[in-house]
């Protein structure tokens, strides 16, 4: 399993997202929001141009915002790291973990009248896997039997999918997976009508016909707008809003525009530029329009562990000790972030092990120096620190650079590169030093961090020794791999979580990644006109539940 819900924030993390106090405090406000709202109204917001809004390739927060409201699948993630049933009325897994059977709510329809049945799911999932789709999210289907044939163009339908009856979907997997139900909460597992055609059907790509709480009004006006209207034939609890007006903004200053738009009353939901946070918080928190919430994302420094100055665990620990996270958070991030002391995000409450990373808790110059000298990271030596430009990382990178230079006496070369170049650098055999890195899960399970980021299988070197997987720190530890494998083979959620916690500790002790700070999202929401506004798992407003006051 590869993967991350590769939201734009991952590259654009700092501008867009600011982690905050990991208190999930906004949940406390929900009591106020339970005013019984009335139907109607137009909800206005801004996003940046999505890659796709068709479930075959919807991938980042923005695309998922639209797809998630146009389509309803088997399960849905909740904002606090759980999954709940949507169209699935029951699930069943075989003891070997290779066969899943889902019952689907009968009688619901797509907005063009076609029935939403097991066939619709088989159609949707197979469509994603087809070679011609070249889908960036097709890897989610990789565990389903027959995936390779469909990818190779030998078959059109995933052979592992079948419909014993109209409303029963049976899924055969090529390897055991006791968390497959959780994975179906991703929008890539949406059903599609026959009208969808194949993945390259432009008409459908631009105006998908779905079975969700909303439907498209007109088509996707690229770089301009997307308009959603309520689907009055929705099979589950109907939405209240009449219309959702989504402006598509320039990625460069979209955040600023959203904020300014909220301030001038043009938007009902907005992100804020980092610099404005203190002002915005002071102004909007008392008015109950301030949303602050932990989400599933982490910011790290990625050390190259098989080569160069970061090969030694002690060198990595020295770097970790040398960074004054508190000072950076206070100085650069206006105190809106909280520092990380784990690899897994605190939003996964069941597995969260606060302060697992002892070197992360407080800057310790003496320890840093000592460890560095033990590791042979001598003053005067050079350390590469690479990051991608144009995403607002410049400032904190400069701060980290200076702290490392001050404490360790090393020369840190901070190099900003366009992302493609940075990625190629990371992948190259012979890469050394430190890279900026961030990760978010596709679905709420620890596996979605630990396996792709740290499992030996995820290094996946090609013939010339370049890494093609997401484990670009090249961390490889058999003990860790074994623990993850055991967890994956367990059908008991509690036992599974325990194994994941142990695996995380192994990786943390090895300093396989250097945690920096958590991801907490801050939003402004127009609670004066709308009731029940919350941030969902994808960091979007819960459009289907919002109502007019």
């Amino acid at each position, binding site marked *: 399993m590869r993967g991350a819900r590769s939201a734009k924030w991952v590259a654009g993390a700092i*501008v867009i997202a600011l982690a905050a106090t990991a208190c999930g405090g906004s949940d406390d406000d929900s009591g106020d929001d339970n005013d019984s709202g009335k139907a109607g109204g137009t909800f206005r917001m801004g996003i940046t141009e999505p890659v796709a809004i068709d479930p075959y390739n919807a991938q980042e927060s923005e695309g998922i915002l639209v797809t998630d409201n146009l389509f309803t699948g088997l399960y849905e993630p909740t904002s606090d790291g759980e999954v709940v049933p949507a169209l699935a009325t029951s699930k069943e897994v075989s003891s070997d973990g290779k066969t899943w059977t889902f019952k689907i709510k009968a009688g619901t329809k797509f907005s063009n009248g076609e029935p939403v049945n097991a066939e619709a799911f088989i159609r949707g999932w197979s469509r994603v896997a087809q070679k011609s789709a070249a889908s960036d999210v097709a890897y989610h289907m990789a565990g389903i039997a027959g995936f390779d044939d469909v990818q190779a163009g030998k078959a059109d339908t995933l052979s592992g999918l079948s419909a014993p009856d109209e409303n029963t979907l049976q899924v055969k997997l090529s390897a055991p997976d006791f968390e497959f139900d959780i994975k179906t909460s991703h929008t890539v597992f949406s059903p599609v009508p026959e009208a969808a055609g194949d993945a390259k059907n432009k008409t459908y790509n631009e105006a998908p016909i779905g079975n969700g709480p909303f439907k498209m009004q007109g088509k996707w006006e690229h770089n301009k707008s997307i308009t959603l209207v309520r689907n009055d034939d929705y099979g589950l609890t109907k939405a209240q809003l009449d219309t959702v007006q989504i402006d598509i903004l320039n990625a460069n*200053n979209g*955040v*600023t525009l959203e904020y300014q738009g909220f301030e001038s009353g043009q938007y009902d939901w907005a992100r804020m*530029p*980092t*610099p*404005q946070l*203190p*002002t915005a918080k002071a102004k909007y928190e008392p008015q109950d329009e301030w949303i602050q919430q932990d989400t599933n994302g982490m910011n790290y420094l990625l050390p190259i562990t098989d080569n160069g100055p970061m090969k030694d665990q002690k060198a990595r620990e020295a770097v970790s000790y040398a960074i*004054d996270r508190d*000072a*950076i958070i*206070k*100085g*650069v991030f*206006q105190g809106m972030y909280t520092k990380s002391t784990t690899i897994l995000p605190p939003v996964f409450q069941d597995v969260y092990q606060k302060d697992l990373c002892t070197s992360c808790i407080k800057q310790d110059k003496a320890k840093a120096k000592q460890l560095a000298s033990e590791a042979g990271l001598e003053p005067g030596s050079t350390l590469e620190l690479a990051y991608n*430009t*144009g995403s607002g990382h*410049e*400032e904190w990178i*400069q*701060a980290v*650079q*200076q702290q490392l230079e001050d404490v360790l006496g090393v020369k840190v070369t*901070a190099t*900003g*590169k*366009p992302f493609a170049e940075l990625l190629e650098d990371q992948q190259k055999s012979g890469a050394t030093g430190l890279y900026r890195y961030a990760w978010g899960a596709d679905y709420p399970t620890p596996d979605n961090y630990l396996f792709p980021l740290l499992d030996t299988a995820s290094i996946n070197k090609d013939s010339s020794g370049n890494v093609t997987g997401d484990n670009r720190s090249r961390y490889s530890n058999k003990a860790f791999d074994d623990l993850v494998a055991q967890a994956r083979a367990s059908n008991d959620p509690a036992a599974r979580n325990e194994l994941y916690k142990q695996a995380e500790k192994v990786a943390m002790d090895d300093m396989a990644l250097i945690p920096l700070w958590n991801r907490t999202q801050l939003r402004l929401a127009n609670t004066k006109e709308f009731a029940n506004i919350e941030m969902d798992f994808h960091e979007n407003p819960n459009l289907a539940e919002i109502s007019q006051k």
Partner: protein
Amino acid sequence: MTELVTGTGEPTAADPTAAKQGAEPSVARVSQWADIRHRFFANKLAVVGLAIIVLLILTAVFAPLLAPHDPLRQDLNATLQSPGSGHLLGTDALGRDQLSRLIYGSRIAVIVGLASIFVALSIGIVLGALAGYFGRWVDTVIMRTADIFFAFPLLIGAIVIILLMGRGVLPVVLSLGVFQWATFARLLRSQILSVREMDFVHAAQALGASRSRIIRKHILPNSLTSVLVYGTSNVGIAIVAEASLSYLGVGVDPEVAEWGNMISAGRGFMGAKDFMWTYPSIAIVITALGFVLLGNGLRDALDPKLR
């Protein structure tokens, strides 16, 4: 691409009639410069412009003495301080002293402004002179090449070069130079063509002066004046272009104390910490104005009838 007029695209100084005025026989050249100087200093605004630029250059040279702090020194305990006693113009998001960054920023402005125009002038003068003297296929090849470079809008061309070379002072200098030489080459060429036909050149030929002597002593000095003047007034354009590139995130490295970077960093603070972008903006405006005034002064001094 425009041979139908001499100097389409060049400033009014390239106007053939202006050239006739400005280009007297080379014996009179000393007094020509004296005239230019005299007219220049008689123009109060031009002197103000010159003063601004002299101040800018002095600031750049003596930046280490003038700046109260190290422009790169971070103080995470004192970020985003409003202007006040400790930091006269406040601090940025990393607690760096804004005044010091502003002062050091003048170095980048001066270096990039002068160096890029130097690059452009060097290429432009050599190629323009070759095209103007030799004519025929040399002229054709050089001028068609100039057309290609001229066809790139400056910022767009510069962005392409920076994409290739990465951010930094050198790429910015080169990219701005490489996409400005065509203008100078064209200007010089048209000047040479018009000077070449002037009476005193014919006179020199009639007196049996050698070709190289005519070029050295008569044509080049008389053709270069307006090219150099135009080059001077373009320094300001280069500085603004450089700041714009940094603002767009394709200029010098972001940690460098540079005005465009400062505005870019301050942009998000609009409304909350306006001091962050207003001071560097003022610095750019004053610098640009200085060069505009200087350029106008030089132009008027060179060609007084345009006043």
